[in-house]
């Protein structure tokens, strides 16, 4: 069975995400910040892929305001 869950992004994929989201949010990325921003998107994609490889149930509800 094909694994359809997200994989960590390559640098090129992270750059494409940066460009698209930068336009969507009207947040220009100055030249001195581009390489660091791409590197941090790649790092976040690694963490996100690890999180999203965990199977969640429909009943696992997000808790944006969290009551410990």
């Amino acid at each position: 069975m094909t694994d359809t869950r997200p994989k960590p992004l390559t640098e090129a994929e992270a750059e494409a995400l940066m460009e698209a989201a930068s336009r969507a949010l009207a947040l220009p990325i100055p030249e001195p910040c581009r390489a660091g921003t791409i590197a941090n998107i790649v790092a976040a994609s690694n963490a996100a892929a690890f999180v999203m490889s965990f199977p969640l149930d429909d009943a696992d509800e997000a808790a944006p305001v969290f009551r410990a």
Partner: protein
Amino acid sequence: MSAEALLDGDGAAIAAAVRARHVTARSVAEAALARIAARNPALNAFTDVTAARALKAAAAVDAAVAAGRDPGPLAGVPYAVKNLFDIAGLATRAGSRIGRDNAPAARDATAIRRLDAAGAVLIGALNMGEYAYDFTGENAHDGPSRNPHDPSRMSGGSSGGSGSAVGGRLVPIALGTDTNGSIRVPAAFCGTFGLKPTYGRLSRAGAMLFAASFDHIGPLARSVRDLAAAHDAMLGPDGEDPAQADRPAVPVSDRLGDDPSTLRIAIAGGHFAENAASGVIEAVEATAAALGVTRRVEIPEAARARAAAFVITTIEGGNLHLERLRARVMEYDPATRDRFLAGSLLPAGWYLAAQRFRAWYRARVIELFQEVDVILAPATPLPAPRIGEQTMMLSGATVPLRPNIGLYTQPLSFIGLPVVCVPGALSPEGLPLGVQVIAAPWQEEKALIVAAALERAGVARCPDLPA
């Protein structure tokens, strides 16, 4: 004992001396101001010293004592706050250059108002990592706060000035904030006690947020009774913090002498027993041995919890700063700038998956706390690195230092568990190491009872400063 000598002890001893009229609050404030003037140039802990305010507050305490009124449980105790807490009349900079342009705060943060009401004397604001996105205590605008046990080393962050000021004996109590470990890391590196209460316990109103899902406030101090006294003074409902839970304000100071042998205590295995530098696990084992603890438990999916905390933090932080990033991005500290930019651009699907996993993880950890009351774990994977270091060794691989300092703290703040960080055995190179004493939500008193027992046994103590 002189006011100057009292500064080497804890706040409770100062309050007792003031109440008994052995010293005046003014003499203590003056001694603290003199000590800050002498020692702060080496530590860079303070960014603002509020001398006039401190002397005025001390005079009010002395007047209360002279009139026979109760001056409060923290009478005359000098304290300072991370510079993201609003102090009336000062711009709240939160470690940033941009924040220096803010209008002066109109009033104090709730935590400051409550500590002042308990008789404590605010003496200044403390250095921190920019906008709290930091584990090192470094700051491009203000310079690094330095470790009092070796000024060439990091204080830890982001409440670096808080760790440096308390560990360096400039003040007995400081306030910090903890989103992923920002109280516990500087407490561990600087050899102090630190309390991160349950998420939603203490009001954050008037403290600048970073990642609202995880932001906590709490004290650093040199004794467990000072942690408890500060906690108790700051308790109580505050309609200005939407994350504060509707829980009874139960003080913990009178519980510190309780017998810890009635508690079920275990050592955290798995994630919390791996990837540590020499001495780190030994410090945990020494605290366990002092308590007669041999049981081990595993907190499930802790590594994934840390990853989810990273995703939520960077996205919430990035979004909080979006407007500032549009307008003034090149004025950020280069150490935080690109992380905030990246976080602001990430997909909502990543964020929501992490929040949903958080609910799953919380439920599993709550189940674990049906079997145990308190869990012991290391605070950091290594003692304070040298200022400027960029990498560390983890499982034989060289990895970036900054994010990995929070290896053991992030999976706990991720679900808001109360944690007392106690100073344990020293590392092989003679540096402080912290041990996390972790309890179930709303059971701060259990972590504090164990911490107090370790303190009485001499296992948890703030190490002496180098001569």
